[in-house]
């Protein structure tokens, strides 16, 4: 059986499962699809693989007691057995005082996060994409290590209250690190797309090659406060924690109400409505944005809509769990699936040109929280850090460790460039003054 079900195929199975229910409420979550990957290092493929999966989870509820059971067989007998098992687990479970009744039918926006070109990827395609990345490096005596992962998935939910939702999506993530033969230079590039026909691994690799060659024999600058130009990959990462994603995910209303978030107000309450950032900072979510299309519903079935979180520096909305929203008597806005930060029209080159003295940062690495109260994070520059003087890149510099908060960073804003897709989000390159570098690293 195929693992990428159509809406009708998924609904037929979900309706069958619901028909077996003896619980107060029952919900079904079905997902499946295919993942493929190829990894290379030292200019050769190291591993590659493909896997498919199709599974169904049933959650039964009796009062405030719930139980879940999962299965990957889809005949009637197996489905019924799974419903009985979920019901049995629910009866034995402790009561969850925060349990919320299941949602009824919902209205969803039309979104389109699926591209047939990505669903059609073959092992040969992955091998060619990798060859396109390795070959130019071999020819220039550079060493490439990289990774590409593609996914084609569907997700469908339904419950005994009449909720029904279906989404299918595709994604491709690609990253490459190019190092010089002497190990003195290193460059990086990363891309993520919904539609693989928009991915060119050769072009991305060429940027990493240029950065590797240009970053060789870096000079040491004293740590301290610098004006920095942060490329999008320094603000949002595909593979690790990042400053902008960390802030976006720390906006939960409950933590703020409880007094343990950067959005908690002294004396109680939250900082909703306060201006916390430079007035050029506007961040919203929108699953219908064609550059970063997302799913139309959250995991618990709530509609994903366009929500403005920060507008002109003012905190406008915070995500709520359904339980906490009910307790506070407010609309239960789910966390956004993606985020979009408004930018300007300047290119990275324009931003460099207008910089008297500063540091250009390709990416940050190993970003970890230091203080949740102030969202202070530490991490290091990596794979291409350069000194800018009088509008020109002068020379590569050694990597720095930073200790900085995105909240402080977004107050010290000098300029915003044109937003770029990164990790499924849109983020502009930023020029920031007084960015805090606290020590030097010898790492290349």
């Amino acid at each position, binding site marked *: 059986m195929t693992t990428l079900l159509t809406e009708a195929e998924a609904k037929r199975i979900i309706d069958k499962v619901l028909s077996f229910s003896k619980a107060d409420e029952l919900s079904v979550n079905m997902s499946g699809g295919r993942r493929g990957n190829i*990894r290379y*290092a*030292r200019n*050769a493929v*190291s*591993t*590659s*693989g493909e*896997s498919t*999966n199709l*599974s169904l*989870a049933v959650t039964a509820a009796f009062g405030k007691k719930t139980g879940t*059971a*999962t299965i*990957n067989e889809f005949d009637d007998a197996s489905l019924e057995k799974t419903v009985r098992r979920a019901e049995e687990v629910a009866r034995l479970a*402790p009561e*969850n*005082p925060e349990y919320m009744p299941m949602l009824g039918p919902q209205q969803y926006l039309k979104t389109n996060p699926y591209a047939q070109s990505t669903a059609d990827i073959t092992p040969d395609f992955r*091998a060619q994409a990798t060859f396109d990345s390795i070959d130019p490096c071999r020819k220039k005596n550079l*060493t490439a*290590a990289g*990774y590409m*992962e593609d996914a084609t998935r569907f997700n469908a939910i339904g419950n005994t209250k009449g909720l029904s939702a279906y989404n299918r999506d595709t994604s491709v993530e690609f*990253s490459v690190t190019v*190092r010089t033969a002497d190990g003195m230079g290193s460059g990086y590039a990363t891309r993520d797309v919904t539609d693989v026909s928009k991915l060119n691994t050769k072009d991305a690799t060429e940027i990493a090659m240029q950065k590797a060659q240009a970053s060789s024999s870096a000079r040491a600058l004293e740590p301290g406060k610098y004006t920095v130009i942060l490329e999008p990959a320094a603000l949002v990462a595909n593979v*690790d924690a990042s400053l902008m994603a960390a802030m976006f995910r720390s906006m939960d209303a409950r933590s703020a109400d*409880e*007094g*343990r978030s*950067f959005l*908690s*107000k*002294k*004396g109680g309450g939250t900082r909703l409505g306060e201006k*916390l950032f430079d007035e050029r900072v506007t961040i919203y979510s929108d699953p219908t944005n064609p550059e970063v299309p997302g799913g139309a519903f959250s995991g618990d079935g709530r509609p994903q809509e366009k929500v403005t979180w920060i507008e002109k520096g003012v905190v406008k909305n915070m995500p709520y769990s359904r339980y906490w929203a009910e307790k506070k008597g407010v609309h239960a806005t789910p966390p956004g699936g993606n985020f979009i930060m408004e930018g300007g029209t300047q290119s990275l080159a324009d931003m460099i040109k207008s910089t008297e003295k500063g540091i250009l940062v390709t990416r940050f690495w*190993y*970003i*970890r*929280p*230091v*203080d*949740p*109260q*102030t969202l*202070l994070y*530490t991490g*290091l520059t*990596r794979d291409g850090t350069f000194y800018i003087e009088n509008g020109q890149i002068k020379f590569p510099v050694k*990597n720095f*460790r930073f*200790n900085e*908060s995105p*909240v*402080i960073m977004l107050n010290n804003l000098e300029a915003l460039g044109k937003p770029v897709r990164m990790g499924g989000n849109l983020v502009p390159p930023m020029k920031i003054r007084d960015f805090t570098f*606290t*020590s*030097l*690293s*010898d*790492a290349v």
Partner: protein
Amino acid sequence: MGAGSLLLPSLPAFSRTVAPEALLEPGLDVSVKKRLADAALNAAKSKGATYADVRIGRYLNQFVITREDKVENLINTESFGVGVRVIADGCWGFAAIVDARSETDMAKAAEKAVSIAKANATLMKTPVQLAPQKGFGEVSWKAPIKTNAFEVPIKEKADLLLTANSAALKNGANFVNSQLFLVNEQKYFASTDGTYADQDIHRIWPTFTVTAIDPKTGKFETRQALSAPMGMSYDYLQANPTDKITGITTRYNMGYDILEDITAAAKQAKQKLSAKSVEAGKYDLVLDPSHTWLTIHESVGHPLELDRVLGYEANFAGTSFATLDKWESKNFQYGSKLVNFFADKTQPNSLGAVGWDDEGVETQRWDLVKDGILVNYQAIRDQVHIIGETHSQGCCYADSWSSVQFQRMANVSLAAGKTPLSVAEMIKDVEKGVYIIGDGSFSIDQQRYNFQFGGQLFYEIKNGQIVGMLKDVAYQSNTREFWNSCVAVCDQRDFRLGGAFFDGKGQPMQSNAVSHGSTTARFKGVNVINTARKI
């Protein structure tokens, strides 16, 4: 950690949620596993494989997740399947199938692995060089547990956490989150070398975070558990007095008292709210094993993984400063003369303890740094020839039957000092220092030079005395400079394990559990920064 991560709880691929009782059902009989394994090995050989190994794995997880007076989640999962790895035409191939139960399934997986190897062989420049390994016949290994935590009723486990939460709230915490993670890996390994190893591995990690809030200032502080994840089962939660290390706060060795620790944690989180903010500068650091494990993990364990040194992780976690020329020189001073690091996959109750690794090599102990000098790396069968060895060190691991095994960190520990020295005697010698207990924030660069670490509890030492609590402390240093600043190491009486339950590495990422032992150690003149900010 690999990519740096103490990963968030992650479940093995293809896990399915099951009723808790399902975790107590016996797995396949060992004779059935042998028959299935032989079917795969024979099929692989008949298709042209020169080497093959099979892993039949049943992976059980149980996670209990609570906050204050509520059980937020109970997760029970089981994952069963088979991974077959072969060498054909000089190249690796791997295939895995879920729920394989017949000889036909096994043969299919083996054939697929061979066909992948042959396809990939066309792209390969140098054939795989696999270090020879003798077969051990039919062998078994079982973690020496006394009480299987999966047999303890879920209610008892949930009640323990809720009782602990209640103790925290009574002692001044505003919020408390607690979790109990349990893992059982039932692994069967067979290879064409003639090893059939049946192994039963248990891991446990009880942990919590308490939060104290000062409504007047709007400030909050947290204190996390001083427990260690261990290669044990429920016996870890049954602490004897001899498992406790008393002092400025109680720490734990082979048994953990969660009620005692959470009570102390609540009081200490409140105390932190009014603690003195550290003055940045150079301090002598006295580091407790509950803290040092993470510094060892990041600055010794990872840089001495041979695959990182060679560049296989360059695009993700990075490479290593500890390059082959430094090892070849035989005089690279990794640390001071007091510094001895050893890798050991046989350490009792450690997370990495096992009888045979995931490519049939008997586990062992070996030196990495001896009297301060870099002497070895961690390597597996297809790498050891690069460092002139003919036998693997036995540190190959896959986090699931569905993942391909690769080099993973062994338990890496700082050996105890050879001359008698207690913690009290060590502190007596410190003029201006900070005593750090528990692990906190951590970050290190992609070649493992520059790092920054926080902690849970910080105490100021002045003229040989602990004078009070500090906060906003983090230290920054460089791996080599730091370990060369090590001026004292307590003796074996203080040796304890810490560890990572979810250490990430590779793409797609795999999780590994690994312990790191040490005794309290002193480091001279380390750069301490103040992490307080205003927003």
